[in-house]
């Protein structure tokens, strides 16, 4: 149970505080309700490039990182298709430094053309390191446009094309800031050895005078229901074939989220799970298997994937996956098996509550979903699910005509290492 207090400032900034006196640390999380889905299709990769620029100087403070380090703190950030999230940890007695820094960069950025150029290079190298220069690194650049034809989930956070980053101008970046980086579009959460009243006072002091800004009304194209199977076959210089099946699921806020998540756990969470036991151990068709959901705000994906052994054909692999999905449609998941994956969900929830940074991050995320208090109900929501609910989801999701199939074939590569 994560107890918290919540207030909203006059400019619309939501502030959440959780007190944990067992730690000498304070964690500060600032979530901005903007992700790659909010980008202009001809200017993709901006939310993420922007995350880099948030460290390059704000109105009154030229160097975010150094000032935080001076207070014994450390920070990082990440961008997803839905959100951009910044987080700092520091000794609790130096909490105000994080407020000073985070409020100044919410107030306004002030970086040079030269710093923009350098960060564009850094992001290009990140693109190469994570997507292009890794075996299987481009999978999501293929899978996204295959599964989304209309919705902006069709591009990854790094961007559709590296040229969008290379061409970004200072004016583009400023426009992006003005549109998304203001108090009503953000959630501030703090956890650790802090006094809630003092934190609220500090929030008012540092964030209270930031202008509210124009509200951003999200109006994204809705991905239509898929009616015919989509298939993509690519050849790459990788050592082994890999197969991906993807199906559209519900939104994170829909009630069906929990049963869908448990369904993916039945398939691959833990070494006793079905794909591991049946397809890796018994049939020895794959060297790796995984099933997971993207859990995104708009309609997400249920992905089943595996790396094939050399003697396994793509056809046999695909058949084996569909067979497992059919079992989920035709037979109820057993009571003990369901209890097992619920217990795993409970345990991982409790483990995450032992970390002061994770608590701040989770509170902000659930507040974005509608109420920070949802954090404390997650285990209950999982425990409410029944075998029938899981079967119903399996029946609605796994029709062959609703599948997107990506066959990632291995070609000519030196395996003698």
């Amino acid at each position: 149970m994560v107890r918290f207090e919540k207030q909203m400032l006059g400019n619309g900034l939501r502030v959440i505080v959780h007190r944990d006196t067992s730690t000498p640390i304070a964690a500060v999380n600032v979530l901005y309700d903007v992700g790659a889905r909010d980008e202009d299709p001809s200017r993709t990769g901006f939310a993420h490039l922007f995350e880099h620029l948030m460290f390059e100087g704000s109105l009154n403070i030229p160097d975010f990182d150094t000032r935080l380090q001076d207070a014994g703190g450390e920070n990082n950030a990440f961008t997803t298709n839905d959100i951009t999230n910044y987080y700092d940890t520091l000794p609790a007695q130096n909490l105000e430094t994080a407020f000073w820094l985070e409020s100044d960069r919410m107030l306004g950025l002030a970086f040079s053309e030269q710093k923009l150029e350098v960060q564009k290079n850094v992001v290009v190298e990140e693109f190469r390191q994570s997507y292009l220069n890794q075996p299987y690194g481009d999978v999501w650049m293929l899978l996204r446009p295959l599964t989304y034809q209309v919705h902006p989930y069709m591009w990854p956070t790094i961007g559709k094309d590296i040229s969008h980053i290379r061409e970004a101008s200072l004016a583009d970046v400023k426009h992006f800031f003005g549109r998304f980086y203001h108090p009503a579009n953000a959630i501030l959460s703090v956890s650790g050895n802090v006094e809630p009243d003092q934190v609220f006072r500090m929030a008012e002091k540092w964030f209270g005078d930031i202008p509210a800004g124009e509200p951003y009304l999200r109006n994204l194209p809705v991905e239509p229901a898929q009616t015919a199977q989509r298939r993509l076959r690519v050849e790459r210089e990788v050592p082994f074939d890999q197969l991906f099946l993807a199906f559209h699921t519900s939104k994170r806020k829909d009630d069906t989220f929990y049963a869908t998540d448990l369904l993916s756990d039945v398939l691959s969470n833990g070494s006793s799970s079905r794909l591991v036991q049946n397809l890796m151990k018994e049939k020895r068709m794959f060297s790796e298997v995984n099933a997971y959901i993207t859990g995104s705000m708009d309609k997400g994906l249920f992905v089943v994937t595996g790396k094939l052994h050399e003697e396994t054909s793509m056809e046999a692999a695909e058949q084996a996956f569909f067979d497992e999905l059919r079992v989920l449609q035709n037979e109820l998941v057993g009571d003990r098996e369901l209890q097992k994956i619920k217990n795993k969900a409970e345990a991982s929830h409790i483990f995450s509550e032992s970390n002061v940074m994770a608590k701040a991050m989770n509170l902000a995320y659930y507040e974005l979903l509608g109420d920070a208090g949802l954090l404390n109900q997650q285990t209950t929501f999982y425990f409410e699910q029944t075998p029938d609910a899981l079967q119903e989801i399996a029946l609605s999701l796994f029709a062959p005509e609703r599948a997107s199939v990506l066959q990632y074939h291995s070609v000519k590569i030196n395996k003698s290492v």
Partner: protein
Amino acid sequence: MINRQETPATSIITHLPFIVPKKGQLGNGVPVYLVEGGTEDIVRVELLFLAGSYHQHKPLVTYSAANLLKSGTKGKTSREISEMLDFYGVYLQIDAQKDIVSVSVYVLKKYLEKVLAMVQEIVIGPSYPQSELDILLKNQKNQHIVNNNKVAYLARLHFGEQLFGSQHPYGYRLRKIDFDKISRDDLLAFHKQWIHPGNLNIIASGKLPENITSMLEKFFGNSNWARPAQEPPEPVYLAATSENKKLLIHKNEALQAAIRMGKRTINRSHPDHQRLMIANALLGGFFGSRLMKNIRQDKGFTYGINSALVSLVRDGYFFVGTQVGAEVCQAAIDQIYQEIRDLRTKPASAEELMTLKNYLSGSFLRSFDGPFAQADRFKEILVFGITPEYFDNFLVELKNTTPESVMDTAGQYLHEDSLIEVVAGKR
């Protein structure tokens, strides 16, 4: 109006929240360390065996013997074991390193006793089924083949070999063929020789039940858990750093080159080690380090660069690692040498040193946050036979650090002419 130009007042860390673990001993002599704390009802129990790949006679034996502990016993199949552990939501972590084998469970306190009974069974009596070994080796071999297409992996493997020599277990570079040479008998022999109470330390952390000691006694203090009649002798190897200081592993299609540079140096048990850690931090140990500022934040050559000191029980080394665009590879290498030269020749400014000290003390504090983190830090000194004063001493070293002491330490241990250089990719 608030003055946003002015930094809020801060205070530095003077007190370390490290609690020396409560030490006990089981009936069979196994030392037990208890680290009590935390807010949630969760417990971690770690069985730490002081033997690792340094002690194996063939590559992959330690890895396989450790990872297959969970894959079958006399009375239970691999599937039964994983069903049980999954049912209780246990997170089982098996770690086979160069000097240690560690088996940890993270478990809800309410299930601890049931889970420890299972841990006892798998650690004491693994059956190492042939089929499980076949599956593990085949899958790991595939993983190795995939990794060999990653420049960072190639650079890391070759760097180890250059540093310690191909005959030394710390430097041995894994080959595909090694996956075909392991038998069940190798695993059984390794288990018999090294996974026994004479080599074991137990660290329990978290919200411990009152009867934790008797629980550990029941499962791991049993005198039936035999030690080998004769302790095997400690193997002896001599490290032989390559005469050839530069190595290029060609991977022509690569867009980026992975660079790894470094040398063997002192480890944690040496009195100068903390001083060297501080100098290393300034060079490449955090986001505000000189390497990061120069090569990422100023030049934009890379997504990230760092340097680190690695302590092995019988040796130690220093390295700088990064991935850069192939076209700027040489420029990046030149800059790395320049930064190492500057570390021993150019004094840090008062501001730079203050940032370093404040950051390191905060980061030090964070590294002790919570019972699991405390247990991890304690493990660092336990493996090296160091006393807990080590931690307080770090804050003293940090306080006493001056621009001159950083330059002296760097000059003594990190001279740029003494480095091995490995590049994987195109340059």
